[in-house]
């Protein structure tokens, strides 16, 4: 995963053998395949643009690779029937690609790639060209399929939600470099760099300085947090996730890490209400209030809020 232009598709094409890396080696099961042509890599690939053979029917598209392998006709029919059932394309076997919707075409492309039982599968932004509903349905179908067939799959995407829901492991790329490798949980909760923090989900990134042991300061505010890995006086970036910032009712005693702020803008996102606040010192923050805690009377523009954040929810990045 990565922003557009970060080199993720280039990396995929290198794995596929359609591009050759200027340096380095590619290994598959311990064997170097850096200079092997695509046909000898035993991989299935699905492109964003489907790339189905327009003059062949759905059946012939799926059977294409098997015909190349010179399978017997009835064996091919059996295999294609299986895939057609697996990808719920039953009533479309005789149709041509131009008669199918985008989601159906991408399913055919998936079936065609899987037909030859490749040892791994490469997906180049397979869902980007589809509309939101089809995308989320096909997303879970791809995951189910991958789990059922137990096939190693590398998927390229710029959509963090897609990556988080589909992946066992995410490699986050930026400007041709790996920013972080980890599980979706690690990537979100333990981001290695401010870039990762910003790319995954919504974040408040603030410039600060370590004022004293276990204390970070910015804009005349001091917050308590774990500063063991940074020495006093170094400049740092703070990450405050909007959902980690909580509102404190005025009646309660002032907690540690208190921030006084006024509401500037409210966005209703469904499960949460994203509140844009400005602290008394002029700092802009995003705060998520869950639907359950949201009180239209108290949470309105220009109303004052008392906010707090737990010390262990603050992440620091050295600069």
């Amino acid at each position, binding site marked *: 995963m990565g922003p557009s232009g970060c080199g993720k598709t280039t990396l995929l094409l290198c794995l596929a053998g359609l591009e050759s890396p200027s340096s380095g080696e590619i290994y598959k099961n311990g064997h170097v395949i850096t200079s092997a042509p*695509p046909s000898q890599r035993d991989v299935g690939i699905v492109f964003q643009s*489907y790339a*189905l*053979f327009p003059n062949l029917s759905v059946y012939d598209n799926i059977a*294409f690779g098997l015909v190349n*392998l010179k399978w017997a006709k009835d064996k091919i029919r059996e295999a294609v029937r299986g895939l057609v059932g697996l990808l719920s394309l039953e009533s479309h076997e005789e149709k041509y690609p*131009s008669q199918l919707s985008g989601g159906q075409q991408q399913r055919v492309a998936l079936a*065609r790639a899987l037909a030859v039982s*490749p040892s791994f599968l490469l997906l180049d932004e397979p869902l980007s060209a589809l509309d939101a509903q089809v995308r989320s349905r096909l997303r879970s179908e791809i995951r189910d399929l991958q789990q059922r067939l137990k096939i190693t799959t590398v998927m390229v995407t710029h959509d963090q939600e897609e990556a988080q829901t589909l992946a066992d492991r995410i490699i986050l790329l930026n400007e041709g470099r790996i920013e972080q490798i980890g599980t979706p949980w690690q990537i979100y909760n333990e981001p290695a760099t401010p870039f990762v923090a910003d790319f995954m989900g919504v974040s408040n990134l603030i410039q600060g300085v370590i004022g004293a042991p276990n204390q970070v300061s910015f804009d005349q505010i001091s917050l308590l947090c774990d500063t063991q890995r940074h020495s006093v006086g170094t400049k740092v970036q703070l990450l405050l996730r909007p959902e980690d910032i909580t509102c404190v009712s005025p009646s309660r005693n002032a907690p540690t890490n208190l921030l006084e702020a006024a509401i500037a803008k409210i966005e209703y996102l469904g499960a949460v209400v994203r509140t844009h606040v400005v602290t008394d010192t002029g700092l802009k923050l995003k705060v998520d209030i869950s639907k359950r805690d949201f009180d239209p009377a108290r949470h309105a523009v220009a109303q004052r809020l008392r906010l707090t954040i737990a010390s262990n929810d603050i992440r620091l990045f050295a600069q």
Partner: protein
Amino acid sequence: MSAQSLKGLNAFLFVHSKPQLMERSDWLVRWVCLAYCVSAMCTIVLPVGALFLRSFNNADGSFVGLQNYLTYFNTSALFDSFFNSLIVSLVTATLVVPMAFAYAYGLLRTCMPFKPFFRGVALIPLLIPGVLKAIALVYLFGNQGLLREWLFGHPLYGPIGIVGASVIWTFPFAVLIMLTALQHVDHRLYHAAAFLKTSVWRTFWHVTWPSCRYGVTTAFLVVTVSVFTDFGIAKVIGGDFRVLATDIYKEVIGQQNFQMGAVISVMLLIPAFVVFLLERQVAGKQMAQFTGRSLPYTPKPWFGAMAYFWGGASPSRFLLPACWSWRSLRPWLSFGPTTLT
């Protein structure tokens, strides 16, 4: 034309329109279209129609039905030239199209060196009229030619010469069409084929060929019709070999047999109609080639019509009625090529 009759004309021409919703530019477009319809009428329908009618008249201008056609089909010398033309043009197309395909394929799909040079060499003949190529062939292979022996004693003047010169003349057109057709192929399809371990032959047959089939057919039709109707090459290098284009010249200019000239001209129109029908057929099939992602462009009706007429109104369309009207005036004029006798 009064305002009232203009309104009436508009109502007649544009039945489906809602005048109160029309912009000024819409009116402009419609009047331009009307102008082009009229010009197309004058420059295509009338001359061809007149020609067609003339083929049913005798020398005095009275109606004789199919008499001229019967004469034509019963005169084997005349009828043979139809087949001569057909064979020469089909042979030329059969030679040129594979050559052009291979040439364009080489230019686009290989890493051969000096590509711009080869592209230029193939296309430069576009600037030279066909007749000059025939003359060049005469210099090379004619009775006094440098390379006369290469024909193993066969005479240049005749079908060999016509086909040779026509091949040289039509090759660049075919190359141009093939270049466009081959550029059209989706590159990802080759990648997909490669991953499925597809043989070179099967890739060609299932990826390259379906995508450029239309181009190949178009090139074949263009070459066939060009050669079929060409006059210059046949005149210069044809010798005693009769083709339709030279026959018309002989009938009209040589023997002043206008009605037979008209019959031959109608025969000359046949391949144009066949090509028109074939082209529509192939284009219809080609539509199925587009996938859901690449939709073909469909022009809006009126602008489309305008573009059609605009494209059709080449200067030759205006020359045609000029010639035709001059020919009609001939009886009242005392000069011209047909009064030399």
